[in-house]
């Protein structure tokens, strides 16, 4: 009556479709993925798709409505709107990445550390977070840009300074939840260093909502970049950027509506792409077996 020597492991008999693959086959994800891929291709190779030079004036074709020669029409200086919208992909996709990436890295590291170590650092972080979150996000960013001066780089700095708090808060909450699991205690009992426990054990399990948040945040960053561009605090004209383009079209909204509408559609589409991918990516990244 000793132990059984053979223990069967529960295995699926039939090869089922991997649930991760299944999550990827959803129409929402496919549409989002398609939009994002196109956006990235346009951002990397704008010259291959833009029919005209985005900055070339053509005084023979001023404020042309959408037509055969100019599918999106032209602006008040005769620049081709389609070409400008396409070249703007480069700027706006950059904004989506740079305005979020550093905030995420700083926020995730800071959030993990305060969650794990607690104590006075956690208290201080709590106060900083409270103060930051009390102010409307855009107001705070505009204030920082006003101090640093307008321009894309300063905008990245401003957004990072404000946005990392949101990432840190989310990370802190996620890490706290993970820390209630015994595998974190098990790591400590095994004598692992806190760095190993945080970054090798806790963080990978806390990443799923963070990545989803990041995706949504990139969509918001494009909106923010465009808003600041519109206000003249982000990208500077004549650089083609959607917010700048909308601002340029503002004065001609009754006579040349396409000048503002076309870049507007680009913003909405790209934002939609990020959101759709963000929604599905949670299911792809979740560890298997967890419902």
């Amino acid at each position, binding site marked *: *009556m*000793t*132990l059984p020597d053979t*223990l*069967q492991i*529960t295995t699926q008999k039939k090869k089922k479709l991997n649930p991760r693959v299944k999550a990827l086959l959803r129409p929402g994800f496919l549409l989002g993925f398609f939009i994002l891929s196109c956006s990235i291709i346009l951002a990397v190779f704008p010259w291959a798709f833009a029919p005209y030079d985005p900055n070339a004036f053509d005084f023979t074709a001023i404020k042309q409505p959408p037509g055969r020669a100019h599918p999106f029409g032209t602006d008040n200086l005769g620049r081709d709107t389609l070409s400008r919208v396409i070249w703007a992909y480069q700027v706006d996709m950059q904004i989506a990445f740079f305005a979020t990436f550093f905030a995420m890295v700083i926020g995730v590291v800071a959030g993990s550390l305060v969650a794990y170590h607690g104590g006075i650092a956690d208290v201080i972080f709590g106060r900083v977070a409270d103060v930051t979150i009390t102010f409307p996000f855009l107001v705070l960013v505009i204030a920082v840009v006003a101090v640093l001066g307008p321009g894309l780089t300063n905008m990245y700095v401003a957004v990072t300074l404000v946005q990392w708090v949101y990432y840190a808060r989310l990370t802190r909450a996620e890490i706290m939840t993970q820390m209630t699991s015994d595998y974190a205690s098990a790591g400590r009992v095994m004598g692992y260093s806190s760095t190993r426990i945080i970054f090798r054990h806790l963080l990978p399990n806390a990443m799923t909502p963070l990545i989803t948040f990041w995706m949504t945040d990139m969509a918001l960053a494009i909106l923010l970049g465009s808003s600041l561009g519109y206000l003249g605090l982000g990208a500077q004209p004549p650089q083609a950027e959607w917010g700048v383009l909308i601002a340029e079209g503002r004065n001609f909204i009754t006579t040349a509506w396409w000048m503002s509408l076309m870049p507007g559609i680009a913003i909405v589409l790209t934002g939609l792409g990020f959101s759709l991918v963000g929604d599905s990516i949670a299911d792809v990244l979740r560890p298997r077996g967890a419902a």
Partner: protein
Amino acid sequence: MMTSQNKSLLQVRDLTTTFYRNGRALRAVDGISFDVHAGEVLGLVGESGSGKSISLRSIIGLARDYGTVEGNVYWKGEDLLTRTDKQLQCVRGSQISMIFQEPMTSLNPLLTVGLQIEENLKAHTDLDRPARKARAIELLDTVGIPGASSRLRDFPHQFSGGMRQRVMIAIALASCPELLLADEPTTALDVTIQDQILQLLLSLAKNLNMAIVLVTHDLGVVAQTCDRVAVMYAGRLVETGSVRDVLKRPRHPYTLGLLKSVPESVPPRTPLYSVPGTPPALDALPKGCAFAPRCHMVEDICLGNRPPLSEIGEQISSACHFPEVAGEEVSA
């Protein structure tokens, strides 16, 4: 307890509950039949995933929400399964009550305990308000909550786990049910509190002539409280009989394995008898006897043929091809 067949309060016949997950049918309960007589305590034992809780929920119509329930459940001769939820309401909570494992989540945290008892009284009795209050105090008193009248205005979180379970029982008793379905009522409690609650349930059953179906995984609890026992494995009943018969001389190797896995009257620090392997997944049930892959006395016939639950003695049934061999094992 000798009760004649026609005194059955509840007759369950071929109860089958099927869930659909990812387009596949899972039979959580597979054709179980049993009777509950007035005033008796029936134990439904099994390990996690054996379908014992689902069976209980199927009886009272709670399993419909997540699966299909087939078969017949006769309550005093009337089939409950053909009734709509609305028609069930006059039975559910009045003639049949139910208590659950986790008393914290089955009480509404935002309402006082008094309100929750009165709510049940309002639904199932025609008492007026002062009478309801008096009855609520009386009920809390019955279940052994000290200072009952002062505790009516307390919220569930102000009670300990054992006290909350008593409150649950008080709510269940509000309508003087004839049958109480108890789903692992003491699993979340400590032994001394478990002991108190079980003794309470037993005395209530006796004083109010109330029948109890007690779902549990602990054979000790069954031994201490039940008159009859039904053992479940992989959604089917494998053995039924009086507690004394089943626990002293099991006729199914699974019951035997369960009994011998418990370290009682075993020399200390010797290897325990253990059933090899783990219970089968519902979507991968073996063709023949579900227990065959883990059984120590498995024969060819077990692999191909599923043994039905058949009577092999007075009031004892076993679903095994070799019930007598299984029984001899324990005395050896």
